[in-house]
């Protein structure tokens, strides 16, 4: 099979103006992937499927990745005028001063596609696509017209990550119910506080148990009342 570099070159030759980037995988699998721009996605996908040599006719897996906003703290050395006493004389000297700067790298949602070829018996080719951000511009083109197997998987990514696939024939939630508002696989999803905590919680569960306890005490502990009600009958 062609390497990702060769596939990138083939795509750029076949689809003019296609933005293709190679994302290296430094792990032992070395499964490098192609990140494609969403504008030409449909023609790139059609090319990958119909090209005689690649013939990637099977979309095996489609999933999502959430990249939240990342705050990056870095130390920069900046030349600055500083008042200093040199040889007993006060004078301004230019000096490199270290400064910490914070910047926020905006997050985005990503869809990952694993493509195989049934005809050529090769694969996978990993393809990625990113949305502009993760709040208001979360659209990606649907690849259901190219690979039928994308239909349910795009619905799943829509359900759990909130990516809207434009051109999907039937974009509804697939796992959660229709009235559900959240996207549970996003990193900032808050779970419902609905389980009894074990007697010896630790780590994340301990933090949640503590928050649960605080909330309970803040409300004057309604559970006590409920227990008394249950004890006085009504239980089956």
């Amino acid at each position, binding site marked *: 099979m062609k390497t990702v570099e060769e596939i990138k070159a083939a795509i750029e030759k076949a689809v003019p103006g296609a933005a293709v980037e190679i994302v290296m995988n430094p792990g032992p699998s070395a499964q490098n992937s192609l990140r494609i721009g969403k504008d030409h996605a449909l023609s790139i996908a059609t090319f990958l499927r119909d090209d005689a040599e690649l013939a990637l006719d099977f979309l095996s897996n489609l999933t999502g990745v959430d990249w939240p906003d990342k705050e990056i703290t870095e130390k920069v050395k900046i030349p600055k005028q500083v008042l200093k006493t040199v040889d007993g004389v006060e004078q301004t000297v230019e000096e490199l001063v270290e400064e910490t700067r914070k910047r926020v790298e905006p997050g985005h949602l990503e869809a990952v596609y694993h493509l195989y070829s049934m005809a050529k018996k090769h694969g996978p080719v990993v393809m990625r696509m990113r949305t502009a951000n993760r709040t208001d511009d979360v659209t990606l083109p649907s690849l259901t017209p190219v690979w039928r197997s994308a239909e349910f998987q795009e619905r799943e990514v829509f359900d759990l990550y909130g990516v809207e696939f434009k051109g999907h024939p039937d974009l509804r939630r697939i*796992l*959660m*119910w229709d*009235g*559900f*508002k*959240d996207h*549970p696989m996003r990193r900032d*999803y808050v*779970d*419902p506080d*609905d*389980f*009894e*905590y074990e*007697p010896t919680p630790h780590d994340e*569960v301990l933090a949640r*148990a503590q928050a*649960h*306890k605080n909330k309970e005490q803040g409300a004057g502990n309604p*559970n*006590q009342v*409920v*227990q008394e*009600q*249950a004890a006085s009958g*009504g*239980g*089956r």
Partner: protein
Amino acid sequence: MAVDEGLKIELGKQGVIVTSLQELYNWGRRSSVWPMQFGLACCAIEMIATTMARYDMARFGAEIFRPSPRQADMMIISGTVTKKMAPQVVRLYNQMAEPKYVIAMGACAISGGPFKQGYNVLKGIDRYIPVDVHIPGCPPRPEALLQALMTLQKKIDGQPLTGDNRPPFLDAEAPGEFPVPEQGEHDLEPTSNKGVWPVPLVIR
């Protein structure tokens, strides 16, 4: 009515059966507990195995799995109850005719099991409907389900027909129908039926 157990056996040897209405009634109920044909997850596979020739649940009177809640006496919650499924489970329970019993089979049906900390799984069906017998296990062995059925039969046998301890279906005041939870924007609403399942107080 108390009849001496030894006297009963002695009379039985002579061809005379002595019984009470309560005994007869409970014998009839416990010997024909028809389960509902209803499986949720991997526990359902064990439940199916229990009904087949090797374990043969029919020996105990839980004979025919009925595909309609109207004809069933017992609901075996066999597996994970997701929050998407929970309203349907409660609705099916409401549609069953009295007397009705519930066996919560496996860790998931009892408490959410391995999915307890998940966002999409109900942490035990007893949050919405009363459960008669809980079976631990993941999944429980067929023997455990048979044991649960026998436990339920013992429970039925011990129920008096009158008095304060009579079963709920003989008590006009007891609730026969349980509110079906709504699927809300973030979670089921309400998160539990307080009359059935008092929220446990975590003391530490």
